[in-house]
């Protein structure tokens, strides 16, 4: 290989690695590493129960039962950002899972088929005693978890959470609270049985945990953990509130990393401490008007899953003078909501669409980046409607970028960059106007 080619490759690898701007968020890499180290150590302890869980499974009952949880979706991002995803992706493909299917699923199935190797990134996930997933977010995970159960021969609990489209035909109404769950709306007033079913399934999950763990739930502890995670959520909402400031003190390049403790260890002192310090840092930056770029020329919202193997893509907007201010897929609730100068006539066809429209309004954004993961059924059907609704209701342009979330072979960098450049020209022009700002900067 010539030095020039090698140089190019190093440059590209560096470009693909995301750059975080805040001090506190620099700790995340170590937190994730420690999380897995602690798990591999504890996982070998006799009697320690291990669960592989889907994102959005309530974590508090797991913590209250001392269950060690791994999240295959999160592990997919670990493999994509720290390892060689191809190793597991190709193993899954040989088994019969094609490239049109969820990349997270293919990585975890490939990891199982490889025999749960300990030389996998961060030591891999320890063999589980149980698998738990919820039907919220997507239906694909139901089949993915069942298949893992079949391959690992362990019990699976599926927690039903009926996602209901809005009643009537005018689409969603969305509250500030809905932003916490990425706009996913479970149950509906005119279908109370669906809400009852959620309760039955939550109780069913606790029973399942009690059975596998061989001990009763400690409800006092559960209440304490729930309270602690409620506090963490509140701090995160405060941080998001600050992100509305122009210039924004924290963008999504930092936020995608910073979500880890909140999503995977919400009721812990570590999460509390991390977000408390992050809040201080974000607030300070806001007060001192320290932005992500020297002069913040445009603000973007990111919809959908980021391309984990190329987090540097988000920094690319910064090179061009703009910031991805907020992202919606993992929740982006803030303390306050709305902007009467920018109220759309409708919010979009469902809560997931509405959450992006609302984030655009709430966080003073000029454009949207819609990560279009063709392997993700739950998201791919919404993105075009988000694009249509943003334009129809707010006149906000958006850019669809297509790739699987963990499979780099699905990404075309040169084409993507030139489309981003063209998009930025449009957004920058619009950002000069901002009639919806109370005071012009």
């Amino acid at each position, binding site marked *: 290989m010539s030095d020039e080619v090698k140089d190019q490759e190093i440059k590209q690898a560096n470009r693909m690695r995301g750059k975080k701007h805040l001090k506190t968020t620099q700790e995340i890499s170590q937190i994730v590493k420690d999380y897995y180290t602690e798990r591999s150590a504890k996982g070998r302890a006799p009697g320690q129960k291990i669960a592989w869980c889907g994102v959005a499974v309530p974590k508090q009952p797991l913590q209250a039962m001392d269950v060690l949880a791994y999240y295959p979706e999160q592990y997919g991002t670990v493999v994509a950002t720290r390892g060689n995803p191809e190793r597991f992706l190709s193993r899954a493909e040989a*088994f*019969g*899972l*094609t490239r*049109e*299917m*969820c990349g997270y*699923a293919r990585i975890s199935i490939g990891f199982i088929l490889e025999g749960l190797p300990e030389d996998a990134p961060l030591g891999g996930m320890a063999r589980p005693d149980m698998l738990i997933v919820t*039907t919220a977010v*997507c*239906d*694909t995970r*139901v*089949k*993915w978890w*069942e*298949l893992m159960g*079949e391959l690992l021969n362990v019990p699976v609990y*599926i927690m*039903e959470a*009926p*996602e*209901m*489209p*809005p009643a*009537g*035909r*005018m*689409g969603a109404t969305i509250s500030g609270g809905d932003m916490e769950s990425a706009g996913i709306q479970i149950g509906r007033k*005119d*279908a*109370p*049985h*669906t809400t*009852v*079913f959620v309760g*039955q*399934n939550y109780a*069913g999950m606790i029973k399942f945990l009690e059975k596998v763990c061989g001990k009763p739930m400690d409800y006092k502890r559960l209440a304490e953990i729930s309270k602690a995670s409620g506090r963490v959520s509140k701090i995160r909402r405060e941080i998001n509130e600050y992100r509305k400031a122009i210039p924004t003190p924290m963008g999504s390049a930092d936020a995608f990393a910073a979500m880890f403790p909140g999503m995977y260890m919400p009721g812990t002192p570590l999460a509390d401490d991390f977000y408390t310090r992050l809040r201080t840092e974000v607030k300070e930056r806001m007060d001192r008007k320290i932005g992500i770029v020297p002069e913040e020329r445009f603000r973007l919202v990111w919809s959908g899953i980021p391309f984990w193997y190329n987090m540097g893509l988000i920094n690319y907007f910064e090179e061009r003078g703009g910031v991805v201010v907020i992202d919606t897929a993992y929740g982006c609730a803030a303390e306050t909501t709305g902007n009467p100068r920018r109220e759309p006539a409708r919010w979009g*066809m*469902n809560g997931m*669409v509405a959450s992006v429209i609302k984030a655009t309004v709430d966080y003073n954004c000029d454009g949207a980046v819609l990560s*279009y993961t*063709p392997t993700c*059924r*739950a998201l*791919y*059907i*919404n*993105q*075009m*409607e988000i694009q*249509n609704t943003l334009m129809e209701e707010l006149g906000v342009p958006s850019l*669809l970028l297509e790739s699987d979330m963990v499979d780099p072979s699905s990404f075309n960098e040169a084409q993507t960059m030139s489309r981003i450049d063209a998009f930025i020209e449009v957004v920058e022009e619009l950002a000069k106007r901002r009639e919806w700002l109370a005071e012009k900067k």
Partner: protein
Amino acid sequence: MSDLMAPFYEVLADRHGWLAKYKAQSGRRIAGYFCDYVPEEILYAAGLVPVRMTGGQGNVIAADRYLQSSVCSFARRCFDQALTGVYGYLDALITAHGCDVITKMYDLWAYRMKDPAFVHYLWVPHKVFDKDAPMVMEGEVKRLRKCVEEFRGSPITDEAIADAIAVYDQSRALLKRVYELRRGRPPAISGVEAFSVALSAQLMPRELHNQWVEALLAEREGKPSTLDDRPRVIVSASMIDDLQVVRAIEDAGAWVVADDLCTGSRYFWDQVGDPAPNPVKALTRRYLNKLPCPRSVDSLQPRLNHIQNLARDYSADGIIFYILRCCDAHLFQYPILNQRMQEAGLRVLYIQGDQTVGINEAIVNRIKAFTEMLVP
């Protein structure tokens, strides 16, 4: 003999034209529905004609603005036709929680389409065999009934539902008898014929369809077959809503003797049975316990059993899986299903389906090669 098949073929040749004409003549309102988890009996009891939503094969142009090309081709085709007015005769539409795509399509239909006047979403549990599932499913069946009552402006009586169950159960029994004509070697009816009968049932008023099937059965049952002996295959698919796939297989020299399709055997195999004392509970029971779609939890074993029983009873030599691109429920279940089929001694062919592509030369060649392999 083929004359009695003509009406079924006529419906399939131009289902939309046929229905529009029927609607104009009869004055009955038409209700489209997605997914075989929708309890059609409620719609039928309300005087509506329930018809299955189909996409058929062909290009997609109008729907491109809403659904990208990587989205399920069945969903895109259905929506494309709706946008171009093909489904203009629909008065009502019921979508069910079948999969992520069809679920989210509710919003598109409700929002982007002027007609139909009534659009309803029915949530169906994944855990269909769970002890708590009847509560939530019954709630959804009752909600459907209430909403349809509001739409038509008068109540739907228990008696009307019981009558609808009788018509539909009769249809299910008749369709099973048609399928059973293929048990013999050679079969007494071709796969194209049998599937035409089953598919057309879902596209027209059921009481009329029942009459046509009774006449056909009177002619065929107990008579010697006029067909030749050929390799015998089962078709399993995520969605087949026209004759192309079955016809391609039979043109290649095999008989399709049975199927594992939600528009075929899985659609009609299970009866509701006695509606007393509560027809809504009877419907709930039937729709939860029927042969499951792979989207449902714990569906692998019942599907395996069903296919293995069919293979035994219909003397199948092989199975062809026709799975639409991006159909996760099927794609995740396929690797294990494939293994088990091979272990059971069945030869397996996998075809990736796409309704915007249809059956092309490459697929035809693969089917031909597979069929030749099955010749003893």
